[in-house]
């Protein structure tokens, strides 16, 4: 038996921020090596763009506005939802099941580092996905990149508010699936329903009124609308229900969901599996 070894004074622990950046690296490695999630997060939206663009793309919604352009804007908004909400609401339950969260909890890692890692992953995955969508859109579906800096500013704040709100909602929603295996079966239909009702697959103003009302409670409808204001000509505003892009309303709803998402993730997020705390 060794004699008394009093707790030696140790060098201080690495900071939450620097560990957060290390987590980003690990998250990215894991994400891009896992072929399943890479397929889902990158190929599916592009695939949808190609299918919808080829089938309905040439339909004219108005003078100089094709459905393909309308759809690209919707898919970019969906890209926010895929890379943040869908990604996290599926990945976190899986990590709760496979022991990732338990292992991290057992280390001195500050918990904030885990979330910094996830936010970094979401950000990089979104930038990569949007780049691919824009390249495909411009190359094949007559997507016009805006030249007005104000439109790029809209793109920026819509992306950032969308990513923040949907990341927080994904973290909060990660407690809903009972286990990792079933997570995508719970999460994917929600994303799909929001896409159908929010003007991604169909022109929003042509949807039944009740569906428009339903969608307007959720972020995707407003995010899609803001993205249309960026990528469609100004004349397309007449296709909107209100006859305008309603950008202040878009920003307000997305900001409200950021606050709501923060509250919900703080209240609901759990590290442990059910009944193991």
């Amino acid at each position: 038996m060794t004699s008394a070894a009093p707790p030696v004074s140790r060098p201080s622990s690495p900071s939450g921020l620097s560990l957060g950046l290390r987590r980003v690296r690990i998250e990215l490695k894991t994400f891009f090596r896992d072929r399943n999630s890479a397929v889902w997060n990158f190929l599916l939206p592009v695939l949808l763009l190609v299918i919808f663009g080829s089938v309905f793309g040439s339909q004219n919604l108005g003078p100089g506005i094709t459905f393909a352009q309308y759809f690209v804007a919707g898919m970019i908004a969906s890209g926010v939802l895929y890379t943040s909400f869908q990604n996290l609401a599926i990945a976190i339950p899986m990590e709760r099941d496979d022991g990732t969260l338990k292992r991290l909890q057992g280390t001195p890692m500050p918990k904030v580092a885990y979330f910094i890692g996830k936010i970094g992953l979401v950000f990089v995955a979104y930038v990569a996905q949007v780049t691919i969508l824009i390249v495909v859109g411009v190359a094949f579906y007559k997507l016009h990149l805006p030249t007005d800096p104000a439109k790029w500013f809209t793109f920026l704040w819509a992306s950032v508010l969308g990513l923040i709100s949907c990341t927080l909602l994904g973290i909060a929603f990660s407690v809903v699936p009972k286990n990792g295996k079933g997570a995508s079966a719970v999460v994917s239909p929600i994303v799909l329903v929001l896409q159908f009702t929010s003007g991604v697959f169909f022109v929003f103003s042509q949807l039944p009124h009740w569906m428009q009302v339903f969608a307007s409670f959720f972020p995707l409808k407003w995010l899609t609308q803001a993205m249309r204001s960026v990528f469609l000509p100004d004349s397309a505003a007449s296709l909107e229900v209100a006859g305008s892009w309603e950008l202040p309303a878009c920003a307000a709803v997305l900001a409200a969901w950021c606050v709501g998402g923060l509250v919900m993730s703080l209240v609901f997020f759990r590290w442990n599996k059910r009944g193991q705390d």
Partner: protein
Amino acid sequence: MTTGRASDPLVVPAPDDADLAVRVRGLRRSYGETRAVDGVDLDVVRGEVLALLGPNGAGKTTTTEILEGYRHRDGGEVDVLGCDPAHGDARWRSRLGIVLQNANDLGDLTVEEAVSHFAGYYPDPHGPLEVIESVGLSDKRRTRGFDLSGGQRRRLDVALGVIGRPELLFLDEPTTGFDPEARREFWDLIRGLRGSGTTILLTTHYLDEAEVLADRVGVISRGRLIACDVPARLGGRDESQATVSWREDGVVRSEVTHEPTGLVHDLAGRFEGEIPALAVHRPSLEDVYLSLINDDSEAES
């Protein structure tokens, strides 16, 4: 300081002057109506390997996970490295190593990436390559987690458990599913850690493992520690009677006695030379364990 509550005569407390890594008194935890842990008293002395044995559902996992800070408790005192695990901070965590049961994470990272990454969480870690070497995974350091065998996977878990130079290491059923050779190698690894002064709390279902590795063995049954002693003395094993058996007139005969030496001496005289099929059997750790568990569940009914 008095250690150990004389609540159970088979629980031999740690010496009064022992330097404790873990001290538990009257630990309680219920899940609904079920009292999973119902008054556990436990001491782990610094530098020792303590093995916790017990049937599934006896409260082993709940007890260790309370000590590790994963679960909360309903009552009792718990001190782990001078700290209450319910309020353990990062500094406290950096002095613990936890080897989980059933972890299946990190599959997309190589051994070296995983170990190097986790080293970054600790203020004073070992060198990743040195730890990978010590668990015998040097030739697998560029292999991804999903491509490791079960035994290699557990070695990676141990590497991650010890990378931060822990004072106290928790090992939860570390050799479940190992083939015999892998278990032997794993035992050598644990002996090496003990030799370097790491305190180890091990839970296991394998009695041979407890006997080989542990300085002391504790038996948990129905949420209480019912026996705790060095393996050779657990449950009065050293004082119990021996069974002497031999073959005589073509039949195997046996006799239970307090004085096996005397009996063997008499037999030797009778046979004038080798005693056919002579065996002197003392209860194995397994025999003692099973009778402890049996007596305890009979006491319940």
